[in-house]
């Protein structure tokens, strides 16, 4: 049996990749992109599309998409770099801070890939459907 365990120290700063919300950043970027695209399209189609066409809407969506994709790729890159550090094999199931960091990075990386795919799906809807109707 192990004797005791480290007590939590509130005064020590926690590195960003050791926080649980790190894994939620990429899907949150997808969610913000999704909502921005939907709200922009809904407002544009109701208020402006009949007079001004859809060019501005497409421009806005392109801008949102660029920001979202770059953001998601950044999360994926940082997570992947953390993942490759050290010599850890999946499934990251040891009682070790490094294993926990690798697990979080691995999950964050996978979620980044999923978020990127889902974001591209949203973009494809604009590419394929084009306008409001």
């Amino acid at each position, binding site marked *: 049996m192990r004797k005791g365990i480290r007590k939590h120290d509130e005064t020590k700063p926690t590195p960003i990749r050791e926080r649980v919300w790190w894994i939620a950043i990429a899907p949150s970027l997808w969610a913000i992109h999704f909502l921005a695209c939907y709200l922009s399209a809904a407002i544009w189609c109701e208020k402006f599309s009949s007079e001004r066409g859809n060019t501005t809407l497409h421009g806005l969506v392109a801008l949102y998409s660029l920001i979202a994709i770059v953001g998601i790729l950044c999360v994926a890159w940082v997570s992947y770099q953390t993942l490759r550090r050290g010599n850890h094999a999946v499934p990251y199931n040891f009682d070790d801070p490094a294993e926990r960091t690798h697990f979080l990075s691995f999950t964050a990386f996978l979620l980044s890939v999923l978020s990127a795919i889902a974001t591209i799906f*949203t973009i494809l809807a604009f590419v394929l*459907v084009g306008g409001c109707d």
Partner: protein
Amino acid sequence: MTNVRDPKAERLLKAWETPKGWRYWSAVNNSEVGLWYTLTAFAFFLFGGVLALIMRVQLAFPENDWLTAQQYNQIFTMHGSVMMFLFAVPILEAISIMLLPEMMGARDLPFPRLSAYGYWCFLIGGVFVCGSLFFGVGPRGGWFMYPPMTTEYQTGVGPDIWLLGLSFIEIASIAAAVELIVGVLKCRPPGMRLNLIPLYAWYILVVAVMILFAFPPLIAGDLLMELERALDWPFFDVERGGDPMLWQHLFWIFGHPEVYIVFLPSIALVAMIVPTFAKTPMAGYGWIVLAAVGTGFLSFGLWVHHMFTTGLPGISIGIFSAASEAVAIPTGVQIFCFIATLLIGRVTKSVCLLFVLAGLATFIIGGLTGVMVAIAPFDYQAHDTYFIVGHLHYVLVGGTIFPIVAGFYYYYPFVTGKQLSERLGTLAFWLLLIGFNVAFFPMHYTGLIGMPRRVYTYPAEMGFEIPNMISTLGAFIMGCGFIVLLWDVFRSKKKQPYVKRNLWNAGTLEWSGQVPDKPWGIRSIPIISTRYPLWQQENLLADIDAGKFYLPDAEEGLRETLVTSTVDAEPMQCLRVPGPTFLTFFAALFTGGVFIFSTYHWWMLAGICAVCSFVTILVWLWTGTANIPEIESKDVGLGLRLPTYVSGPGAVGWWAMFITMLGDMTAFISLVFGYFFFWTVHQEFPPIEFDGRPVVGPADPWPLVAVGVGVLAWGMVLLSRRWNRKTNPILFIAGSVVTIVLAMVTAGALFWSAYSVGMDPTHHAYSATVCALILWTVLHIAVGAVMLCYCLARRLAKRMDHLHDADIVNVTLYWHFLVLTISITGLVIAVFPRVA
């Protein structure tokens, strides 16, 4: 085995003793409340199942007049509502309340009284809603309650019963969600880092967060619809600027994540069962976490696929269609992980596993038809036909019912120490599987040949007769399966010996309990260093039983558990959790009275109940929360000394307030969404004139005055907290009094902005929306002021001081959200009309 004559063990047992006799119902421990919750939810499930059989009898023959259209409408509405609100969501919370602490080696969840309160709310609300059916006044508008049918054409009390009764239960669901989130994040055993927690806990964490963001939009929708029905505020009345589509948006922002809210916890049970019967750790732990979190997020981007036929712009439909396809990716990933685990393991035959496999196969069929209806052109054809009924039952029965039945077989020995019969289980399995497929597979065909949903009968010679008769036969075979299951669960097992400890040879911590189990949850809280500690940590059970880990004793006779850090589960606090009380029952009873009497517009009784509820909750908080401990820290074992009182972000109470306010903010944002929704659908918003009268907005500059004073009040709250910490009670009291005055000025300014210009909320949807935002904000300011009065009283009564300041710290957190609410309301109603 533990020697119970050991004085430490005896003290521990005494502290966690279950009340006896009639006091049994004052229990708040997770084992009792979880069990009541599960049995009650299962009873509602059986009630919903009987309703389904009645429907199938009615539809067995064409032109059947056994039921009238009105009766049939009530029955299908109640079937859907009961299954979703009284079974699917509560059962997941019930099972989680029962299992989660045991899985994490915790003695209880952090707020046991909140769980008990949630349970009593659920029971009272559920009986109220179901009871309406026996008086012929049940809701008739479908489980989605679409207006204008439920606002203009159904003037009876049915929709009010649905709106108020289920809102009451939704609040209980949110309470359980708060409990579960804090439980997973803060009550894990030392060492159980994020990469080691049981997959069940990951799923429940995701689902509880989903509840937090999915239920509030529905609560906001309920509020708007009840305001329309009770006070004629025209949110959904097209003639006065309202729009029924707003309800559809609010309902489905809840309604689609709801599908995953009920699916993921059931799959979580699968994630616990599969490794046990494959005798190997789950393959792809990280991938499953990806699937759970990914599904949780993506499920919020699907709600419009329930509204494809409402005439939305093509691009909106395209966006949601794409997201509906994308969600198949994470959903599929976890199923591949389960299959991979079964392939690499040495599988042993069991009824649990049969139900798991049936569940996966059925869900996959439902998922595939789901991908079909996510494609808009196909949905145009299938919408509102029996194809959808077939699809949704494949998803819900495959994704929820079969895994839950598997969970029943798996966890029955955990709860009772006895085992269900494998022979009866196999019989029940085949009856359920065959009955289900015979009942629901033909519905795809019935739908494709054109039979609409929600019709109480159909003409002969339409080709619907044979498939409907087959479906009815299947439904009754399925019913027989449930009777066998029921018999197996409730038959007397007195002569049956107790099962051996850890019957299935599982690897997770919930199976560490002795048989029969003791009420303490776990003898001592262990250090965890693996994902399957019972498999991978040597001598663990013996060390737990010998009390070699944390909190093996209850020297002060109090119920205690450990609070640990979020990521690495490092010990932070020895948390004293409250014991049995009837306060939670009475609080729920009076809260229920407010909702139930309001349904019938018996305002006097509702008011009395509101006052009683307020007083009961106040007594509960005063006596049971944030009490100053008799010792500042204590030795919890293994030489570790931990504080007994913590305030701020390290405290579970702070987290509960934060999480609750996230849900509250979501409901508020849903109301704000309503304002902007009306802006998009109207050419001119706010309108200048309507129905021969000018449409007036809030009077300048009062909303902005409210924002200014509200910010000042918030600043004073921050100062009051600081003065309290600097041991300056006089300044703290003065600061709190000033804040209360400022809060009243803020509320008064908001009220005056509408009242002074004679805003009539029944005039136009614009007026109604502005008044709803003001009403929401004023109520929240009132709650904020009451909270400060409470802190003042605590300080004066010496139940709060400069070191023990959890009350004022949590109230400050409330005020952070409140100042945001005040600012958004003020800016939206005062500034947006100028810039729009």
